[in-house]
């Protein structure tokens, strides 16, 4: 099941040229671009691991792409990688944009678990099949 989230979730994955254009847009607005990765695809997993620090002093997208290339070398294939842009200006102070740049080749999807409770109530839980394995081994096979 293809995980989607963020600004361009309805589009196919962005190509590198498209990523460069988006990153440059963020930088031109003065937003700090972050690179994050995770191997837990659960939608409630909000805080991903950061690759380096937010890039708030990089004026050109090529610099960010340099960092993305390093992150891909370490984590592509075994992790999701996303980019987010943080607007620190007063009143916003939050993410303005975020999109997934890399995903594992095989995304097994989620299981729906039903828990039967008192009075025929049912509680639902989604669990990623990949998260059944320990961290770091989830997408290695």
């Amino acid at each position, binding site marked *: 099941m293809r995980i989607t989230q963020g600004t361009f979730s309805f589009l196919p994955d962005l190509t590198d040229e498209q990523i460069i254009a988006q990153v440059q847009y963020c930088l031109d607005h003065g937003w700090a671009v972050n690179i994050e990765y995770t191997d837990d695809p659960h939608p409630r997993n909000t805080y991903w691991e950061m690759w380096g620090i937010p890039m708030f*002093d*990089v*004026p*050109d997208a*090529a*610099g*960010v792409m340099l*960092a993305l290339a390093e992150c891909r070398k370490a984590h592509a294939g075994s992790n999701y990688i996303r980019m987010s842009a943080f607007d620190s200006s007063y009143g916003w102070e939050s993410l303005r944009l975020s999109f997934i740049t890399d995903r594992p080749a095989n995304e097994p999807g989620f299981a729906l678990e039903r828990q039967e409770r008192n009075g025929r109530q049912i509680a639902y839980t989604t669990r990623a099949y990949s998260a059944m394995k320990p961290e770091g081994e989830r997408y290695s096979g």
Partner: protein
Amino acid sequence: MSGAIDLKRDFASSGLDAELAQLDRDLVGLAPVKRRIREIAALLLVDRARQTLGLATEPPTLHMSFTGNPGTGKTTVALRMAGILHKLGYVRRGHLVSVTRDDLVGQYIGHTAPKTRDVLKKAMGGVLFIDEAYYLYRPENERDYGQEAIEILLQIMENQRDDLVVILAGYADRMDTFFSSNPGFRSRIAHHIDFPDYDDGELVTIAGTLLGQMGYRLSTGAQVALGDYVARRRSQPHFANARSIRNALDRARLRQAVRLFDRDDGVVTADQLSTIEAEDIRASRVFADPAEPSA
């Protein structure tokens, strides 16, 4: 055929002639440097014209090395270079990141690579200026981390030529040693530009410009005195061209201040406040007995 291209109009519309004229006006002397900058500008314009006409173009290598004695304007020109390359559309942002060994080389194992990459990330789309680049390589210490920074630099210089222009600067003799021990650097740098020393007349002109920027001017006597000063200062040790002149002017301003302060009546006019007199310059140690060493 797709027609012809008016290079002259192209040149005018790029805003480059203004930049080059400004360079000509602001920088005294440095004829070979200006000639090389013109050549590079022409090459880039021709390249752009070729591209418009659909001829094969190879993105030119623009990494440069500036060599010359202290105070010959290497840093000043590097700053200008960023603007020129930006006007030509060769670098996207036109900012200059100026670094020395400290900014690139780490203190312990594993510290250098992230540090160098951080600097490179910042410089992408602009010009990276490495001042006193020969310090990167310390042959006397084989475990020196400088070598690691050099390797990363070389890799980026080769692979990301469209994204980054690297300018190395340093004194000629030491840069020669640096290049001979790092042949990879020499071959990746297309433009080796040598900054000549200024002659006496040029230095006096520079002094005038510097003072003008600070809102001072030289009296006629001081002009002559400064000419004598330059001639004498040159023969003394640690002569650093325009930098020596700037320091001399700073000291002349100090003496002028004291002279005005010590006047009996204590009343000064704007004209007096902004004029450097001959005595302010003649009081320099450079005019002292030649047998006596000066700093």
